[in-house]
């Protein structure tokens, strides 16, 4: 009885692609220069990062390929630079370009997992708190308050350091990625929970929810199929922007030395390594990872900025 509405298929449904092309969102995207540039750049960076094993001159995880005779080679346009080390090499003979490509892949993967996990936890907690209210709401939101009263960077560093300390030493290199995902998730889920909770507690008082209740739709189904879709717009914007924040958080943790180890470098690790040679003249070891990280985050934020304005009904 309750499922009829869902099972009816509308007549003459336009194809998904055509619907997308005619939508307001697509139109505002193609007319927004920053968004187009950001999206193209972002796609390029992601594709090159994931194609690292195919296109990088060197496999940075294979220590046999690192040769000390190739150490400290400057970029190719400088005197002493040579093929294939286009952006030069670091102190151990690691190709900077290859390091950047593999490092970006690590950074992006960690950020994606961190955002997905914090999104999942945040949405579940926020929905539960907003929908049931009362004591569940109180307990969950007090807990969120406590986490919010610690600066996120501090929370992530502590979580990462303590979790890393609990790992047995032989697991540290591989477990590091998981630890960072955990640390970023811990400091990140609260914002989603708050957004979803605020939205849910507004939505649950609306008539369509009461109607669904009268039809004896189960609370779980009301939450997931009726309320959740209506809370997704602000969450989507926050997720895009916090994807950039997650990349920065990972880079900061690795830069500070509580993140990825030198054997499995992320962009932050590369910057930490390069930072040691800042004053000794090998500027390329640090500058290129820094530029790559900046490009990555700026391109994400360009898309996020556009999305925030495009989905804001007040600005239409």
């Amino acid at each position, binding site marked *: 009885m309750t499922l009829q509405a869902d099972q009816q298929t509308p007549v003459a449904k336009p194809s998904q692609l055509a619907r997308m092309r005619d939508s307001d969102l697509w139109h505002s995207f193609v007319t927004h220069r920053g968004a187009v540039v950001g999206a193209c750049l972002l796609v390029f960076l992601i594709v090159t990062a994931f194609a690292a094993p195919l296109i990088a001159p060197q496999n940075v995880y294979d220590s046999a390929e690192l040769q000390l005779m190739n150490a400290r080679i400057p970029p190719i346009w400088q005197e002493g630079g040579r093929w294939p080390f286009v952006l030069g090499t670091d102190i151990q003979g690691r190709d900077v370009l290859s390091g950047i490509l593999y490092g970006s892949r690590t950074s992006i993967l960690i950020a994606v997992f961190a955002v997905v996990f914090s999104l999942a936890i945040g949405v579940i907690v926020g929905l539960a708190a907003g929908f049931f209210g009362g004591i569940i709401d109180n307990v969950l939101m007090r807990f969120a308050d406590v986490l919010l009263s610690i600066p996120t960077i501090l929370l992530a560093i502590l979580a990462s350091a303590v979790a890393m300390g609990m790992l047995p030493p032989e697991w540290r290199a591989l477990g590091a990625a998981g630890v960072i995902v955990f640390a970023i998730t811990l400091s990140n889920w609260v914002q989603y929970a708050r957004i979803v909770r605020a939205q849910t507690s507004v939505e649950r008082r609306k008539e369509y929810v009461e109607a669904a209740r009268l039809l004896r739709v189960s609370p779980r189904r009301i939450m997931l199929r009726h309320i959740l879709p209506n809370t997704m717009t602000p969450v989507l914007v926050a997720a895009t922007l916090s994807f950039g924040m997650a990349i920065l958080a990972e880079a900061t943790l690795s*830069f500070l030395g509580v993140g990825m180890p030198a054997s499995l470098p992320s962009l932050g690790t590369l910057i930490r390594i390069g930072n040691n040679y800042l004053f000794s003249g090998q500027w390329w070891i640090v500058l290129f990872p820094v530029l790559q990280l900046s490009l990555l985050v700026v391109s994400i934020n360009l898309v996020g900025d556009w999305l925030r304005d495009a989905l804001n009904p007040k600005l239409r």
Partner: protein
Amino acid sequence: MLAFLIKRIGSAILVMLAVAFLAFLIFAVAGDPVEMMVNEQATQADRDALRERLGLDQPFLVQYFTFVINAAQGEFGISYQTQRDVMSLIASRLPATLELVFIASMLSLIVGIPLGVITAIHRGKWFSEGLQFLSIFGVSLPSFVIAILLILVFSVWLGWAPGFGRGETVALGWWTTGLLTPSGRNAIILPAIALALYEITLVMRIVRAEMLEVLRSDFVKFARARGVPRRIIHYRHALRNCLMPVATLTAMNFGTLIAFALVTETVFQWPGMGLLFIQAVLNLDFPIMAAYLVIISAIFVTLNTLVDIIYAVIDPRLRQEKV
């Protein structure tokens, strides 16, 4: 009003108790401190004696209670690494951090407010759109990236300002300041800019948004119609109406800046609390980590509570709605 005060302060204390619990948990999950403090030859009796002296033979809740009582009195135990009192270690590093954060806050206001006003007044012109675009970089780039770029350009390539350390300092009682010596003033320039840049863009964006709103209001139109000079309309009448959110932001973000200073301090080897904390993290020096967490959160919570209370004083409607 009194009820509001009690409620607000009460909830701040509850939050701090919970933070203290988290800090206390660091010890619990971190392993046995006795094993870290004794040397190899220590007998079982030595270990038991130390355990008793540290109060580790007590039940969990009693230990937590002792931790809170001690923390409230500024007593955080002894550093594993240096065997020195944690609180005096942190106190000796506090002035460096506070000076850096204070200068950065000032910088964000001095630079951010005029930029916000200019981009709002000249909306649509190339330089204001350019500034607006640049501000995306300000919020996108992490402070350590900015710090590294600043060091590379101004310290390594141009040699204008030093890229590490705090320069010479002068002691004023227990407070040491670098602001009174030329080398100290030189040394603070780059770290302060690196720390302030994010805040500058925030201030600029807020002032711009607020100004755009105020400039549309009736009293500005009326002032224009009356022939009040534009400069006075913009800077005396309109800007004043934008300063409240800026003041809130600056106060609330002071705590965040102190926490974020730890990244800047690491890059510049600035001898503040943050550098102490990072070194403690890398050396697994748990008493310092716990103390830093409690102190930073206390500053954070105090500022937020103060802002809430001040708001409630200004706007009585909030006394009912909040909490």
